[in-house]
């Protein structure tokens, strides 16, 4: 440190600390607090090492899969034709009531007109099984949590008090109130209805005639989803990356 040089600088006073200085100071404070509280307050999930992406990619990096299996889904979006066979299969498999605001998976439609020609796009959506799920963070009774075995965001219906805070917190609007269960319900990648019975994919993925939904363990390098996620020339995106939930449902064009 060149004291002589610094002495020539104008005194900025205490009200104008450079933002980098301020940020470093805050980080230090947060780090200290985090250490004392064992990390449980600061980490958004109960799994401390949950990470979903590196600085410039939405795809999880190698060695950053905190779960035994790490299920995810790739949507080959431009193949979707909104035949809604997935929706029917999901309702049947998971007994989703036939109400317009009750769905575990849905298809969004966007109509645009390009040079006088009507264009339509369809986008399948479902629970993104985020690595930092805001719904889990806000649940007051721990009724919803990341399953440590699979990374699936699951519901413990008995613990749910139906406060709907998770519905408000979910950036993907992927939760609904089930009047039958009198609890919040949501997509669980068919964990209880299919995966537990040894099926390898979800009902929606199995029903898709256009090969849009590719379900699998993104940790397993032999799976198709792994290969799709690691094709270097493919553009991959997620919905609402800015909310920082680190979703596990990825979108690409076939």
């Amino acid at each position, binding site marked *: 440190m060149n004291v002589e040089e610094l002495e020539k600088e104008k005194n900025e006073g205490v009200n104008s600390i450079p933002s980098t200085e301020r940020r470093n100071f805050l980080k230090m404070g947060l780090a200290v607090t985090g250490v004392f509280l064992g990390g449980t307050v600061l980490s958004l999930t109960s799994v401390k090492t949950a990470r979903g992406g590196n600085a410039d990619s939405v795809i999880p990096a190698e060695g950053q899969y905190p779960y035994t299996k790490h299920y995810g889904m790739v949507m080959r979006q431009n193949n979707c034709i909104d*035949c*809604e*066979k997935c929706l029917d299969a999901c309702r049947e498999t998971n007994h989703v009531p*036939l109400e317009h605001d009750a769905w575990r998976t849905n298809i969004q439609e966007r109509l645009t007109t390009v040079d006088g020609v009507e264009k*339509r796009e*369809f986008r399948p959506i479902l629970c993104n099984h985020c690595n930092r799920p805001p719904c889990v963070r806000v649940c007051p009774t721990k009724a919803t949590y990341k399953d440590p075995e699979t990374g699936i965001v699951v519901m413990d219906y008995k613990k749910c008090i139906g406060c709907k805070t998770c519905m408000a917190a979910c950036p993907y609007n992927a939760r609904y109130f089930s009047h039958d269960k009198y609890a919040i319900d949501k997509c669980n990648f068919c964990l209880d209805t299919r995966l537990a019975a040894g099926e390898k994919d979800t009902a929606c993925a199995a029903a898709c005639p*256009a090969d849009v939904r590719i379900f699998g363990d993104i940790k397993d390098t032999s799976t198709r989803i792994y290969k799709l996620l690691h094709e270097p020339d493919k553009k991959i995106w997620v919905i609402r990356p800015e909310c920082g939930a680190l979703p596990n449902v990825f979108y690409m064009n076939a």
Partner: protein
Amino acid sequence: MKKEFLPVAVAILAGSFLLVSHASATSATEEYDEDAFGPQDPIIWDEPAKASFDHKIHTDDYGLECDSCHEDVFAMEQGIAPESGNFTMAAMAEGQFCGACHDGDTAFASNTNCIACHAVPEDPIVWTKPVKAVVFYHKAHTEDYGLDCDSCHDEAFAMKAGAAENAPDFTMKALYKGKYCGACHDGETAFASNTLCNTCHIGKKGYDRMMGVEPHAEKKGTHGGH
């Protein structure tokens, strides 16, 4: 000023009224004679396929007599031909019905000039099997791209409505092999079948909108008890 204007206006009105009444009087005198030329309105058949026949063109324009067709080729009574179960293009090719004259010698052959009698369907064809839903616009293909009926019928598609839809091989895989739409949609003649999916696939949402189905109509009132 106003008083001078009024008689002029009356004169104009009266004149135009006279003109109109004169015009209607002339058309009344040249009224179409149904006894000589047959029914004025075209006959429109819905079965087995939509087709029309205009008596006036055949009698007034081409000078045929009633007994040119009645009753050897067509019964006078309405609805006899379609009810016969034999009112088909195949029968016409054998010289029955319209085929009695439309044989290529007396009049244009029955397997040509389809749109002389058959209209290109105005409404889009909407297939709901094997997936919901796919649209096809005849007008776009005939008017915009200049295709003829026999560009697709009967090799790629049977004329009969629902024939493709009920065939087990009406799938994208068959299209990729050059069947159905794939006869042209191969990437050379027209865009390839495995591209631009949503040009033809309008989805369930598009289908409901086209058919005027109210969104969530069937789902109302499921929770009246709560």
